[in-house]
């Protein structure tokens, strides 16, 4: 496919140049920076130049590091502790011969957190495959069902056990948040899984699931980027993967570890953000607010 930037890199270069040029023009041309009252007829929103610059910078950095990793340059990434926690929980379940439960959150597959959860799910399936213990995946949104089925099936297949895959273990329960929680609690209470893995986008049901899981004596590992629910996971689970670590874990576990380059990219972006923050704070302290204002988005 020629349109994909990474598979055929040289073809991508002219495109990048054009984008770069455009941004330069946008930044220099003063007519863009004059905020117009009525934008309904124009083709570019000048109030969002700052967003465009950031987006292009961030995309560029990520793609650069992924390409570097693909070329075989070694990139140092520290071990992500969440991985050990998942492996330990699944390991304990296999020792005890008790099921593993994977809860992928309650949002649809068009949410990035759910996609990250699906990537992790495939690898959990791979870990479980050899041991003849069931892997239950209760699901809240119908659209997630086919994706989860595929991921589990593929996980079993790549571990050489396609026969062990049981379609009935990927279960749609209900779209309604608390009905879903009730259904998952039912699985926890009656099938007694030894490892509860809760990854994805959770809301108020987080504590219900984690408390019921504790009651059944399971080892619980949870991960979410929903800040308001993190306190409950931290309190009630054995191990909690916080915010960005969820995406990092999924990057680590994804098919090509080389995609870890994206972690480097996001690290660089973080460093730049810290620099901007420091500079901005100093400038504002001295009464220069133009720099800060540039980051204002309407």
């Amino acid at each position: 496919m020629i349109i994909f930037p990474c598979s055929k890199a040289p073809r991508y270069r002219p495109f990048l140049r054009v984008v770069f040029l455009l941004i330069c023009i946008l930044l220099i041309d003063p007519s863009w920076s004059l905020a117009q009252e009525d934008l309904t007829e124009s083709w570019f929103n000048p109030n969002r130049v700052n967003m465009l610059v950031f987006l292009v910078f961030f995309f560029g950095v990520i793609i650069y590091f992924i390409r570097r990793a693909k070329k075989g340059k070694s990139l140092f990434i520290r071990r992500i502790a969440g991985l050990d926690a998942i492996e330990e929980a699944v390991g304990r379940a296999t020792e005890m011969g008790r099921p593993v439960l994977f809860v992928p959150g309650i949002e649809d597959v068009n949410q990035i957190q759910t996609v990250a959860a699906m990537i992790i799910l495939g690898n959990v399936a791979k870990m479980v495959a050899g041991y003849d213990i069931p892997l239950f995946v209760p699901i809240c949104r119908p659209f997630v069902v086919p994706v989860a089925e595929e991921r589990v099936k593929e996980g079993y297949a790549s571990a050489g056990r396609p026969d062990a895959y049981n379609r009935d273990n990927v279960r749609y329960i209900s779209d309604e948040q608390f009905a879903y929680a009730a259904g998952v609690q039912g699985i926890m209470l009656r099938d007694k899984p030894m490892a509860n893995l809760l990854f994805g986008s959770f809301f108020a049901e987080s504590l219900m699931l984690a408390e019921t899981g504790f009651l059944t004596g399971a080892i619980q590992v949870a991960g979410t980027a929903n800040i308001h629910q993190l306190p409950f996971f931290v309190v009630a689970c054995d191990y909690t993967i916080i915010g960005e670590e969820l995406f990092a874990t999924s990057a680590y576990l994804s098919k090509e570890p080389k995609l870890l380059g994206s972690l480097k990219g996001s690290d660089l972006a973080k460093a730049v953000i810290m620099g901007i923050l420091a500079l901005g704070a100093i400038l504002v302290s001295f009464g220069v607010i133009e720099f800060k204002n540039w980051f204002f988005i309407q």
Partner: protein
Amino acid sequence: MRREIPIAICFLFGISFILEYFIPHEGVLSIFETIRQWAIIVIAFAYVLGIANLLRINYHVVQRKQRDWPYKIILMASLFFMITVGIVFDILGVGLGGIGEGTIFGWVYYHAQYPLQSTMFALLAFFIASAAFRAFRIRTFQASLLAVTALFVMIGRVPVGESLWAGFPDFTEWIMNVPQLAGKRAIMIGAALGAISTALKVLTGLERTYLGGE
């Protein structure tokens, strides 16, 4: 082809939605609004898959008389009941069909689903107490920070706290506006960068595991 076309579609729609963010043109916005509606339609179709999955699994349980099978009959019966009074009654023109106020569907919603839902939600009052009792032990420094802040904020929010120490509300406010806010911002920034890079990998087809194997 079985993988390239889906990935191309993914890329195309993804990039267009990114561009849409920068285009304030009315015509363009209305096109994208239509496409957003499409996603809702497509998801509605997927619902049939969900219901089929639910019925298949529960039917298997009943057929094989596995544990708790009578309850699965209740589950399927209530599902069929809702669909019957919702659609079938409406199409047949039987009274009280359809959804909304004053229909059987509405009654069941107000007197079964709503109380069940809100009662499940209210179970959290109990769980939050048992979780606090168990976890808030002064074991390590980190655990103590967690426990002590939780206690302060908790007591500072109720009238009793204020009568214990007049400065409690202000102190709670400070915790919320300084350390809580700072931690929240850091998680937000990190998580957003992680999400964006994952999204980018999905769009460009670098991460395509969601499509499944061949």
